[in-house]
């Protein structure tokens, strides 16, 4: 198959960080090329270099064998390269048409914009993905999955020969992931080159043809996916082998830690009742948009509710009082890391102690030594990768940011942990660490709710699984009889209608 893009000894240095430090890679048409590496290995940076967002420090990019230099995203678009970035890269207040054509609007002979043509083209492209949304819909009214689909339409709209997807499935549900795979395969058949970035190995083995592994910004190896095993890849990524993904444990279930009774928020979730026991890991599975996050936010008290009650032990938790939930030992790791989890411009230390400031303070004044000690302890536990604990969190890679959020909540010494997608976007090594850590905590008698859209994770970690669909609890499985097909079946149900309207 023909080589479309080739990178040779590409380097990208930021002040104090060598994000890319000699990467060589070959991207061929009609191939799905997996780009893998730990958090902070430089994958997203590579995407930005290829799309002209960042300029190169040194090295050469070849397109069709000729060296090119991308001064701006326009150049790379002109060369037929499109990307779906890891960060939110849409315009929420603009319509679908605009999101697709921003940067390369269609114009009439007069120079004015040709809205009719753009709408027609949008409908046509959406048709190719069998999407039925009005082109005039504002993106802020779309679901997460729909937004991803629009991003792909956007890539199609410039007739891209290379489409780069930076963790496209991180916030998609299984059904949508399947649809995405279909689409990727279709594109591959049409001769498009796909670069696929993911931390999920099942995914890589299912969809990718070739791979390149990065470590610390350096090229480590490449080859055909068929020739390697998970263990090989993990060894290349981390420089060492990984024991296992899910910890072995023998749960001892204790008394009731959390009781939710007929909790409801109109149009979001209805009639939710369940109990959580000490020492238990309770998995929550469902499709994206099933309302799990909203439910957890309501339990924790950062979202209102229209009825029902929540008890932690004997105490009833009131709506919109997270302080009360925290006083009862509840910790909540939210799903949206950048929006809800970290304070990007504050240091690792300040982020880590934010939820437990009282504990590290005397007379209302935080003690810097205590803070540093607490942070150091937690950073070690999660093997946080940072040049200094005084570094701002914004300078960390996504996965390392997630570790900071976990540290923050662990510092509150909780008894009940609500984890909403705790391993989203983090690499295998860290994922395993998080898993074993969840296991440890449960064994110590903590009560844990694990919300995850990754079926393997839910099944591998949970003592009991609750399935939500369209805002309601629809099924419950014990560890012993939780089979993948049944759990998934319950989540999808007979109808697969979208919540909303």
């Amino acid at each position: 198959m023909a080589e479309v893009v080739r990178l040779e000894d590409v380097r990208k240095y930021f002040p104090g960080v060598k994000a890319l430090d000699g990467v060589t890679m070959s991207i061929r048409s009609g191939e799905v090329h997996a780009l893998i590496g730990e958090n902070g290995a430089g994958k997203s940076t590579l995407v930005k270099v290829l799309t002209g967002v960042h300029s190169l420090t040194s090295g050469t990019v070849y397109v069709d064998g000729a060296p090119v230099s991308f001064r701006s995203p326009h150049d790379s678009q002109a060369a037929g390269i499109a990307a779906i970035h890891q960060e939110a890269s849409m315009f929420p207040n603009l319509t679908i048409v605009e999101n697709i054509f921003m940067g390369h609007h269609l114009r009439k002979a007069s120079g004015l914009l040709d809205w009719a043509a753009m709408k027609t083209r949008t409908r046509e492209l959406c048709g190719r993905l069998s999407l039925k949304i009005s082109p005039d819909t504002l993106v802020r009214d779309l679901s997460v999955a729909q937004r991803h689909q629009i991003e792909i339409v956007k890539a199609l709209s410039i007739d891209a020969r290379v489409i780069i997807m930076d963790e496209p499935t991180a916030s998609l549900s299984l059904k949508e992931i399947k649809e995405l795979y279909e689409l990727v395969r279709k594109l591959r058949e049409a001769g498009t080159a796909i670069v696929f970035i993911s931390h999920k190995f099942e995914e890589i083995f299912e969809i990718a043809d070739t791979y390149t592994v990065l470590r610390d910004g350096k090229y480590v190896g490449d080859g055909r996916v068929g020739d390697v095993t998970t263990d090989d890849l993990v060894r290349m990524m981390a420089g060492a082998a990984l024991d296992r993904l899910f910890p072995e444990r023998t749960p001892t279930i204790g008394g009731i830690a959390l009781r939710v009774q007929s909790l409801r928020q109109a149009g979001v979730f209805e009639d939710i009742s369940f109990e959580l026991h000490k020492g238990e890991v309770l998995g929550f599975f469902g499709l994206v948009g099933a309302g799990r996050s909203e439910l957890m936010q309501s339990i924790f008290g950062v979202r209102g509710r229209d009825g029902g009650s929540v008890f932690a032990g004997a105490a009833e938790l009131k709506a919109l009082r997270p302080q009360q939930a925290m006083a009862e030992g509840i910790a909540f790791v939210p799903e949206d890391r950048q929006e809800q989890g970290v304070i990007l411009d504050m240091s690792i230390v300040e982020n880590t102690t934010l939820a437990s400031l009282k504990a590290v303070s005397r007379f209302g004044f935080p003690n810097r030594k205590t803070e540093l000690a607490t942070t150091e302890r937690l950073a070690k536990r999660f093997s946080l990768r940072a040049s200094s604990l005084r570094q701002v969190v914004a300078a960390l890679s996504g996965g390392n940011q997630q570790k900071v959020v976990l540290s923050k909540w662990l510092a509150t010494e909780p008894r009940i942990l609500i984890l909403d997608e705790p391993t989203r976007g983090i690499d295998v090594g860290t994922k395993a660490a998080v898993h074993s850590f969840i296991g440890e905590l449960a064994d110590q008698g903590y009560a844990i709710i694990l919300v995850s859209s990754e079926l393997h994770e839910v099944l591998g970690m949970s003592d009991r699984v609750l399935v939500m669909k369209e805002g309601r609890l629809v099924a419950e499985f014990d560890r012993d009889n939780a089979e993948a097909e049944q759990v998934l079946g319950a989540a999808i149900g007979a109808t697969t209608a979208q919540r909303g309207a």
Partner: protein
Amino acid sequence: MSVSQRLAKTFVRWEAVLVVLLVGVFILNTSLSPFFLRRINLLNATYNFMERAIMALPMMLIIIVGEIDISVAGTIALSSTMMGLAMQAGASIPVMVIVALGTGLLAGMLNAVIVLKFRVPSIAVTIGTMSLYRGIAYVILGNQAITGYPRELATVGQGVVGNGMFPIPLAIFIALAAVFGVVLHRSRLGRCFYAIGNNATAARFSGLPVDRYKAALFSLNGLVAGFAAVLLTSRILSTRPNIATAWELEVVTLVVLGGVAITGGKGSIFGVILSVFTIGYLRFGLSLINVPSQVIGIITGLLLVGAIILPGLFEKLSNRMIIDRQLIPDIDSETTTIDA
């Protein structure tokens, strides 16, 4: 972080720039006017900008949590009016002060309620209440002025500490600045303010009572505006509805020149203190050599803009130096601001 980077960072610290500016202002003024560097003049000049300086303290906190209050000057006018009404009704000085503080507090609380309950951007709300508060003062006073304040009231705004020559307003400012500084930089509360200003959602998800803190800060801002009204009234011993006209933008200028990010989450008390004295003494010095007020306006305006551009240039230069040392041929300017 390398040593050179650390050095560069310290060097371009905003406060460092302001210290340079302040020293520059002193040198310039001293060379231009023989009257500038007299202790009595330096002290007396402060009477004229202490109300605004004091207002800059709570405004700093409001801006750090990502909000703004444009209604302060209107609040001062209203508080002074109420204070005058109290005086006319025969109230004693302490009662007058309480009335002024209470009026300011209520005005601040109304701002808080509208901003937080209806979730309207505070700049929009306080543009409205700016007219509302001053408008109420006009409704009450019409074309009348309130005069005849007791002479003793003058002590607060015009007096000196003990028998010396240290102005009472200046002493109050220093004391308040110390309190605000400790709260902002050393206390748990201050840490929370920074967190809220940087990312209010994440702060709320971390269990911080974001709305309660913001409400408290708007109320505090009103309360301090009430206090500034007491100082101003005591200084001029009369009240008209148009007092403190256009002070809102002057107070905001003090805060942002002090290095407080208008987008919230960044800034220090030292910066604000330095900016208060830089602007105050710059204006005083220039008026000593009788530069027309409009030209003083031009100079302070340029100072504001220059003080922001220069450190940015320094930073870019020093980053370039660091990169050069690492033998990197090219650096992308857009991405170097990650820790700015």
